[in-house]
């Protein structure tokens, strides 16, 4: 893609697509509702009408959660790859998903939690705790948190927590039976309460992450070069990591672990914009909810009246597209 003008045009086009998907997501569902009624429900809400109730209390919050989670995962993933300078790094590498999963399993197994809202705070606490541990161990030593130490520490802690999770699941079938539905990642049944409780975190995370763009550009040149350019490397990395944890912790708490989005969307953004993080970050933040909403809509209609979880559909439709894109474009390496 050419200069800033065409990148801006691309971003605006992506926003337009996102707007259309938001409308579709409100209009489409298990129960067919006429577009006029949908519009009516949005503009002149009447809580005595069943169709209005569906639109306002089910589809609207679900769409909000999809937007929040999508933006958070895309942005968090892009920042993470910049911090770790590794194409294999996803937010999971900071231990976010493993920590969330373990705490959810503990919530189910020890405290008998069974509601989606009950999982939220367990997941968020687990994600935050695990990533603090990863960062603490990864920054031991003189050099502080270098990308490779962070990545290895993250991978080790992820596996460690994952093993404990698996052990509990194998020892208790009832927990396994409940956990497997959380573990695929889904937007089904996410209500306004979940949206409003996670929104402040994600907004703060978005601000932090977007502010990191220039710093990530400097870090991409290597630590020494970044220092030479006057970048405070340790501070930039720690700040970015805080952004990632808030974003992805909240997203995982709201929708469960959706691995594909945070890993792949930043690569797509990089393929489209080139290596400048000031563009990669906003592109990731818009492309990710596009993928997530499209997948969620497809998941709602593909096996009607049942639903296919969004975590499954994102990868199923996203993976072939991604492989095609990787083959087609010249790669801008991290």
């Amino acid at each position, binding site marked *: 893609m050419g200069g800033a003008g065409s990148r801006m045009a691309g971003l605006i086009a992506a926003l337009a697509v996102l707007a259309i998907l938001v409308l579709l997501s409100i209009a489409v569902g298990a129960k067919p509702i006429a577009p006029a009624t949908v519009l009516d429900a949005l503009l002149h809400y009447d809580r005595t009408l069943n169709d209005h109730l569906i639109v306002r209390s089910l589809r609207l919050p679900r769409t909000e959660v999809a937007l929040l989670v999508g933006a958070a995962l895309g942005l968090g993933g892009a920042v993470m790859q910049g911090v770790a300078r*590794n*194409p*294999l*790094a996803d937010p999971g*590498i900071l231990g976010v998903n493993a920590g969330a999963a373990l705490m959810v399993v503990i919530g189910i197994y020890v405290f008998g939690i069974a509601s989606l809202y009950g999982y939220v705070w367990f997941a968020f606490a687990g994600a935050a705790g695990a990533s603090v541990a990863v960062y603490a*161990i*990864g920054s*031991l*030593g*003189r*050099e502080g948190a*270098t990308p*490779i*130490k962070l*990545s*290895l*520490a993250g*991978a*080790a*802690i992820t*596996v*460690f927590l*994952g*093993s*404990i999770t*698996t*052990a509990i*699941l*194998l*020892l208790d*079938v009832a927990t*396994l*039976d409940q956990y*497997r*539905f959380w*573990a*695929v990642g889904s937007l089904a049944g996410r209500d306004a309460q979940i949206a409003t409780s996670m929104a402040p975190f994600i907004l703060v995370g978005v601000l932090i992450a977007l502010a990191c763009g220039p710093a990530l550009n400097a870090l991409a040149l290597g630590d020494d070069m970044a220092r030479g350019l006057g970048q405070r490397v340790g501070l930039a990395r720690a700040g970015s990591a805080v952004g990632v944890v808030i974003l992805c912790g909240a997203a995982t708490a709201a929708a469960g672990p959706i*691995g*594909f989005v945070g*890993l*792949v969307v930043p*690569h797509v953004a990089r393929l489209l914009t080139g290596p400048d993080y000031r563009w990669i970050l906003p592109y990731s933040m818009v492309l990710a909810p596009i993928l997530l909403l499209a997948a969620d809509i497809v998941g709602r209609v593909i096996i009607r009246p049942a639903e*296919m*979880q969004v*975590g*499954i*559909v*994102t*990868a*199923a439709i*996203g*993976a*072939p597209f*991604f*492989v095609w894109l*990787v*083959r087609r474009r010249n*790669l801008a*390496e991290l």
Partner: protein
Amino acid sequence: MTTTTADSTGQRGLAATTEARAIVAASRNHGRSRAIAITTALAVATFAVVCISVSIGDFPIALRDVVPSIFGFGASDTTFIVQEIRLPRIVCGLLVGFAFGMSGTVFQSLVRNELASPDVIGITAGASTAAVVAIVLFGSSSISLSFAALLGGLGTAGAIYLFAYKRGVSGYRLILVGIGIAAGLSSVTSYLITRAEITDVQRATIWLTGSLNGRTWDQVATLAVVIAVLLPTLLLLARGLRALQLGDDAAKGIGVRVEGVRAAIIIAAVGLAAFGTAVAGPVAFVAFVSGPIARRLVASGDIALLPSALVGAVLLLSADLVARAGLGSIELPVGVLTGILGAPYLLWLLARTNRMGTGD
């Protein structure tokens, strides 16, 4: 006058070069002897873990009786237990650990990324999806399950290679295509897991964790043949692998046929990973962690193929020992324990090498 100065500078230069050569040679020899020492120590450790594993179980066997009974010279009941029950599982663990350790470190060197391993870049994802399909849709077990996993692993590796091929295979494109295909496949796995009967889900979870329970001599034999062929192949290809680590252009410059060597290395490493997975499932972490641990032990910056393979074997065998006999009445699949034992060791190693200022 001028000639004398030139001569003396020349001599001093010569002396300096000889001295520098001697230093390089000494450090190289030092590195080599350290590598040999570490490899020997790891081999001894492997043997020790094998013996301890043979001796521990519901029917304890004294350590001094272990070696005789392995070769059939012990009391008949001990020999039976050792040869028919304990040894197949232990040798299986040894070989699978060996295969995963080697395959993992080869992938990491090949794509020059410490986070790469067959688990991460899609090969085991293919084996896992095939196995879960076999369990959930066809109710397979043991042999047919192994076969499905093998086909899944090899087929996926072939697909990744083909999709990544575009006038040659760059390591970076291989990683990205691997990520994409792994994600697509694991979505199929998750879909099946949410739709299946809970008993099948449980069996699938055990398989996906990796287990050595009830492995037989037949499975050992297949894996042994595969390793006997692929291990020497990879050791022969090690020179080429070292050259590829310098980057494609540099490797071409020193006369390496880049694409051919890379394809051969990939085939060998995929073979090890796929056959290992077919026997034991995608045991977590072994392929990933063996290379980093071995490279830090050897500390020469070299790729350390044999040490990585031995680290894999020690890790898998100790984990299986704990899984089998260390938790009282609870018996867990080995894949749970490889992570719990391996991760703290990697973290400790990271912290220690950091203190010495050689973190990377």
